[in-house]
């Protein structure tokens, strides 16, 4: 058999397991992305609070989570919680680890968007009697989100690639199933090119969706 036929044969044989791993990757990403987006939003409110104690706590969280390696955080959650008597599944630990770190990045991204809105809008809204959180919700955030769709999309793509780290705690996502396929077949280059293609499909899709959202947002403005 020539090389192309051999490779095709190998990829067809491993395809079911790789697809199963790809679906788990999509599952982890689909759970972690909304969680990170929401947690980031919840984090940016205290981050921009007037009280330096509250803002300080938020800043401490953001700095800690951004500056420590995600893999170390995932291990800590997975192997550390049992010491407290808790045994969440590896999927839960993986999603939690990813969401907790990326929430920190999202919070900073949101903050950039919010601060880019002219302070005059704040003043005008406060002047007609709106409370701070309402201003944020109804006036500032809708405009801010439109501005930061690009960076948010960036973060989501980085998050998708970070899902490969949860293979270290045994989640059978794409990178883990690829490693097992390589052990079965001893053909690493072909398998890694194949999963590279899978990740590319996923990230390109998410990037395209974000760009579509940006277009619609720009058109409606």
């Amino acid at each position, binding site marked *: 058999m020539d*090389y*192309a036929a051999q*490779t095709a044969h190998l990829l067809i044989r491993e395809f079911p397991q790789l697809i199963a791993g790809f679906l788990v990757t999509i599952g982890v990403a689909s759970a972690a992305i909304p969680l990170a987006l929401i947690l980031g939003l919840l984090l940016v409110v205290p981050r921009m609070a007037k009280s330096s104690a509250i803002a300080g706590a938020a800043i401490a969280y953001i700095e800690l989570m951004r500056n420590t390696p995600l893999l170390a955080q995932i291990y800590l959650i*997975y*192997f550390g919680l*049992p*010491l407290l008597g808790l*045994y969440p599944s*590896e999927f839960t630990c993986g999603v939690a680890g990813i969401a907790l770190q990326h929430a920190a990045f999202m919070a900073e991204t949101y903050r950039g968007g919010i601060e880019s809105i002219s302070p005059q809008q704040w003043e005008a809204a406060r002047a007609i009697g709106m409370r701070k959180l309402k201003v944020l919700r109804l006036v500032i955030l809708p405009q801010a989100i439109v501005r930061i769709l690009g960076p948010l999309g960036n973060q989501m793509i980085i998050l998708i690639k970070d899902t490969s780290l949860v*293979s*270290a*705690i*045994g989640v*059978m996502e794409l990178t*883990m199933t690829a*490693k*097992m396929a*390589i*052990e*079965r*077949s*001893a053909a*690493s*280059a*072909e398998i890694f*090119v194949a999963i*590279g*293609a899978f990740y*590319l499909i996923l990230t*390109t899709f998410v990037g*395209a969706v974000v*760009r*579509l959202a940006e*277009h619609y947002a*720009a*058109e409606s403005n």
Partner: protein
Amino acid sequence: MTSRREFVTKVSSVVAGSGLVLAQGPSASAQQPAPASGSSQSKLDEIRARGKIIVGVTSEAPPFGFIDEKGELVGFDIDIAKLFAKEIFGDETKVELFKQGFAARWPNVQNGTVDFGAQVTTVYPDRALNVAFTRPYIDSGIVLIVKKDSSINKVADLNNASYTVAHLTAPVQAERGKRLYPNAKFLTFDSISAQFNAVKLGRATAAQLDSPVAFYYAKDNPDIRVLDEWLTDVTGNAVFLRQDDFKWWLFLDTVVAEMVGGSRFSAYKAIYKKWFGIEPSSARIAQSGRKA
């Protein structure tokens, strides 16, 4: 100017472009020749010209390969690797120890990143389809570790949906699991230390380990014990290297033969005693008529 048409054009060109790029991938890796035995040089000649050997090892399977308190990579496999350097160059420091994960063992010998591997690797015939093995340099077997107070005493006890077993990514462990305890849940990790920690911290009821590794862990961790019933016959760990290199395989196999029961047995005995506390036995010595 319709932004939608622009957008669609851009997306399709990106997809087409990446398709073109990806199509280069398989044909590019086809440029590396499948090992052609006649044309490429034997590893043995390449190594003698280079002046050192590069050996694939692990750093997370005590006592075969691990990082000690001083931060140095030590272990039984590491000392064996140094013996090979001594045989080729007369100098056991002419070795580069290349730490690699268990999933990288076969690719790294096949593409020449390492010259051979000495890495807690059991000889199985299906592996021999893809890599070459010398004869074994140490006997082993696969056992199960559990926590000391666990109610598991036999392998059959594990065959219950309420139990979890930690495996390595090696496919043979999953196959064993499906055969011996299919009702249990499996966890798969890519490192032996993660497997061990899973049992120690209660994430798994049991883990499949090489017997010398299991005994070593049990020695330092009184809350872990090894089941009496082994999962396999007595197996052997051996040096693995790429196929199609007879000259290199013959040299390595000759050295192993001499280590485990011939002219280099004293050096081997010293290493064995250092890591396992007992002396190895050798059938050749028993039959030779020599008294001690």
